[in-house]
């Protein structure tokens, strides 16, 4: 978990710590990811291979067969990343700064999985969803994506317009005494 200054709102009243992160710089890249030349260019540029289906590695997440979500590394800016992507990928592509379109949350605690399991229609057991996995699904009625940052920490993203709703939803779902603590058994 990064330092406290990177959070705009924190709620520690529940069984799992819920924190809303301040603006996280990220870029969406749309292009045909099966193209070998493109894959090589992305690897050279980002220093990491294109993640496999539904995986996240080194801050690059697989969103769809033709879409990546790139967390802008510290020391760089979305503008610089987009310029680099535009210059290096020759195939038809689109790179957009989506930092302001997204809200990012951190869930920390041994039962972080249980909080998401209340609203997401997927298998969140440690066997089915581990570190390195990336899943786009719904949480309640909200379209979200999340991944395990560590065994007890989940990062979740959703649209920025739903930031407060999502925060309140998570805090409500994490209330003490409300988690079955089944998945970590």
């Amino acid at each position, binding site marked *: 978990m990064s330092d406290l200054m990177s959070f705009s709102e924190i709620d520690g009243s529940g069984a799992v710590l819920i924190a809303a992160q301040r603006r996280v710089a990220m870029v969406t890249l749309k292009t045909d990811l099966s193209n070998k030349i493109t894959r090589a260019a992305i690897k050279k540029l980002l220093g990491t291979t294109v993640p496999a289906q539904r995986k996240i590695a080194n801050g690059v997440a697989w969103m769809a067969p033709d879409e990546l979500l790139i967390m802008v590394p510290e020391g760089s800016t979305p503008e610089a990343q987009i310029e680099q992507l535009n210059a290096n990928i020759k195939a038809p592509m689109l790179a957009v700064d989506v930092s302001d379109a997204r809200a990012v949350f951190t869930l920390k605690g041994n039962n972080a999985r249980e909080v998401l399991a209340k609203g997401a229609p997927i298998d969140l057991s440690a066997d089915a969803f581990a570190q390195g996995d990336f899943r*786009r699904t719904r949480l309640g009625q909200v379209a979200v994506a999340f991944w395990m940052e560590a065994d007890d920490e989940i990062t979740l993203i959703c649209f920025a317009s739903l930031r407060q709703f999502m925060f309140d939803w998570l805090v409500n779902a994490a209330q003490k005494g409300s988690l079955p603590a089944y998945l970590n058994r």
Partner: protein
Amino acid sequence: MLLLTCPYCGVEAEETEFLGAGQAHLKRHMDGSTDGEFTAYLFERKNPKGIVFERWRHVYGCGKWFHAARCAVTLEVFGTYSAQTFEPPKDIIAKIKAKRPEWEAKP
């Protein structure tokens, strides 16, 4: 509960993660079609008690459209396949015929 496998995400997900969009493999009658054909394209849909071919979208996931072959009565899914096709693939048809010998593929 209906479980569909998104051919793009490769993940078996629950129905509420998807958006159903009705009958698949419609012929799009546009310019040069008769009034009857155009009416049929716009309004007439099959509603069989049994095997259906449908369009679905992984709306809470990758956002891609795909097709699914399933049974409307038992919710048994015979397979999902790419939307970039005009007719169900042969392997899906074979699977259905293996399980429902009495079923006939109608155009």
